[in-house]
């Protein structure tokens, strides 16, 4: 048959009188063997072609290795279930180990802990079924992306890097991180304030601030927290003046006469209940003056150095507290988006002492530096008051803490979220960073500062947290 076709292809016709000769010719041993050999070679050629096509299909088909991240344990199965990859009989990777990865041929997994970031090409060697065992394997280059550890991308540049004292004074410099732990009357306060990563990344200043003081003479304590607005040039100074002004105000103005009267009102209220208007009156009178004083101090400073007051935009929250025989009186004021939360003794109740100025599209935030807040009809609602037997924690925080840990305002009203927050502080977190709320704990301020390094994607604002316990 093969020879007949061959003759046809070469236009060799076998006339009838040569037919017998042709039959004999076909059956000659040499020719039979030759045809057999040719057929075998044909088969091999066809198989080789088919092999080439299958290999080419594999080379052309995109094989995706899911992206890895430095230091993050990696284990991804490669998707060899696509039809093109079904023919693969052997796989090996050439240079995976230099990235801290290796290929597990049994499970077809790439696994390991990536050790460097970048866009790489890795060499996959493979054979398909039907290939000679001793032949060189085929090579397919595959993209491998290893992301940097997001934490490593943040720089930490000191705001006073290579700067002298004069520069610091001229630029209203303040330390990038401060912390404190003190007795505060019959309670204690632990507080820390530090730059967010977004400021540290570019060597910018800390905009947050705090101040507190206990007045031995009358038993009152005051705690202030302020958050300078990122968009205001001298916000760091605004928040600093605001906190200091409030402490100064109460230091000068909590005079005996005034206070004795308030103590009586509170006692009366505790014993008889009823009309709370005299209390509101006292709270409003004294705290509003302190808030206004803070505003005026900033205003004065701004005028002195010829800057508009809006360059000093800062939020301000503060709490005044005092222990009486019958419990604690807590008075608060707040402007801006920093919450004050009071947790009762057995953590069964949360009282959010202030409402937050939040607005979706800017414009919603209010600052102590805005004169209009004092004349707004909302101004009287900025004050809080409560009388409680005792409490476990009174917390004042800036949005660097609140945004990351409570996310939305509504969660500040929920006890569950505060319980989680307290658990988090006590070490129930990814880094096992814990604050031990023990008054004999000399490390407590360091512990709080360390805890405040928590990682929260998208939340890298300055962080300040004051806890009275």
């Amino acid at each position, binding site marked *: 048959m093969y020879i007949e076709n061959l003759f046809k292809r070469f236009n060799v016709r076998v006339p009838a009188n040569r037919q017998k000769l042709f039959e004999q010719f076909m059956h000659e041993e040499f020719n039979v063997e030759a045809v057999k050999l040719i057929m075998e070679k044909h088969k091999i050629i066809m198989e080789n072609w088919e092999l080439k096509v299958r290999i080419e299909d594999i080379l052309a088909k995109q094989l995706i290795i899911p992206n890895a*991240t430095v230091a993050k344990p990696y284990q991804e199965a490669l998707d060899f279930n696509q039809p093109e990859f079904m023919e693969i009989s052997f796989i090996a990777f050439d240079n995976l180990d230099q990235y801290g990865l290796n290929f597990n041929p049994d499970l077809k997994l790439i696994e390991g802990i990536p050790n460097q970031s970048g866009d790489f090409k890795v060499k996959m060697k493979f054979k398909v079924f039907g290939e000679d065992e001793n032949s060189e394997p085929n090579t397919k280059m595959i993209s491998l992306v290893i*992301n940097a550890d997001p934490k490593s*991308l943040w720089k930490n540049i000191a705001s006073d890097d290579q700067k002298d004292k004069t520069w610091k004074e001229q630029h209203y410099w303040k330390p990038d991180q401060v912390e404190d732990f003190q007795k505060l009357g019959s309670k204690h306060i632990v507080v820390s304030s530090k730059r967010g990563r977004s400021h540290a990344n570019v060597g910018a200043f800390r905009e947050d601030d705090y101040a507190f003081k206990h007045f031995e003479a009358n038993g009152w304590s005051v705690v202030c927290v302020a958050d300078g607005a990122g968009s205001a040039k001298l916000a760091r100074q605004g928040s600093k003046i605001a906190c200091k002004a409030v402490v100064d105000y109460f230091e000068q103005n909590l005079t005996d006469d005034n206070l004795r009267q308030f103590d009586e009102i509170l006692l009366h209220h505790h014993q008889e209940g009823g009309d709370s208007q005299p209390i509101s009156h006292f709270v409003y009178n004294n705290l509003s003056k302190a808030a206004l004083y803070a505003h005026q101090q900033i205003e004065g400073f701004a005028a002195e150095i010829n800057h508009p007051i809006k360059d000093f935009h800062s939020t301000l929250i503060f709490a005044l507290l005092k222990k009486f025989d019958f419990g604690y009186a807590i008075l608060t004021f707040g402007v801006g988006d920093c919450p004050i939360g009071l947790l009762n003794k057995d953590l069964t109740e949360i009282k959010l002492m202030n409402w937050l100025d939040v607005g979706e599209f800017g414009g919603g935030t209010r600052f102590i530096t805005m004169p209009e807040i004092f004349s707004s009809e909302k101004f009287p609602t900025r004050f809080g008051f409560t009388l409680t037997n005792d409490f476990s924690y009174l917390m004042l925080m800036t949005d660097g803490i609140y945004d990351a840990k409570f996310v939305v305002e509504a969660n500040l009203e929920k006890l569950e979220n505060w319980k989680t927050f307290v658990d988090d502080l006590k070490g129930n977190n990814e880094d096992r960073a814990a604050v031990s709320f023990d008054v004999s704990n000399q490390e407590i301020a360091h512990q709080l500062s360390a805890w405040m390094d928590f990682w929260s994607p998208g939340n890298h604002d300055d962080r300040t947290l004051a806890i009275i316990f």
Partner: protein
Amino acid sequence: MRRLPVYLLLDTSGSMTGEPIEAVKNGVQVMISALRQNPQAIETAFISIITFDSVAQQIIPLTDLASFQMVDLRATGTTALGEALKLVSNRIDNEVAKTTTEQKGDWKPLVFIMTDGIPTDDWLPGLNEFKQRKTAFTVACAAGVGADTAVLKQITENVVSLDTADSASIGKFFQWVTASIGVTSTRIEDGGKEIQGIKELPPPPPELNIVV
């Protein structure tokens, strides 16, 4: 986590064949690599790619930079810009989270459109759809002389043009897109503020003409 959604609408019509489409592919690739090095962008920016030729297709849904994998782009067919505008409107509705009392929604999306031609479909319904969506800003880029900036001006006031759709110019455009995404993600992480318009973006390189 509040995401910063970024939609890239890329013209993959037949006229983009050759150098332009290769430049776009490369531009996206380089952009992703660069943004991965930016600590703010890698946390907040989520990228989606919508291509439009005879049809519009979301070839990559909104994806974080860390897991983003570029796919191949092929230039073929006509220019269904209207369909692309309709599609991106639909994707914004479905992919961008809204703020509620229980959750903080995503930031308003950034939209970058690049085309080298004029729409071949009935594109006004798509334009009307898109106009109803809120974006932080939309930038349209007319690549080469075949594009009509007057058409793009109807989509957004922020229109830039490239004299030629060669790889150098297209590369510059993507460099500027990269810088713009970087600046926006830094701004929102730092001050919680969104960029309002093209004036707040980094100045475009000389290869990009701002169309007024």
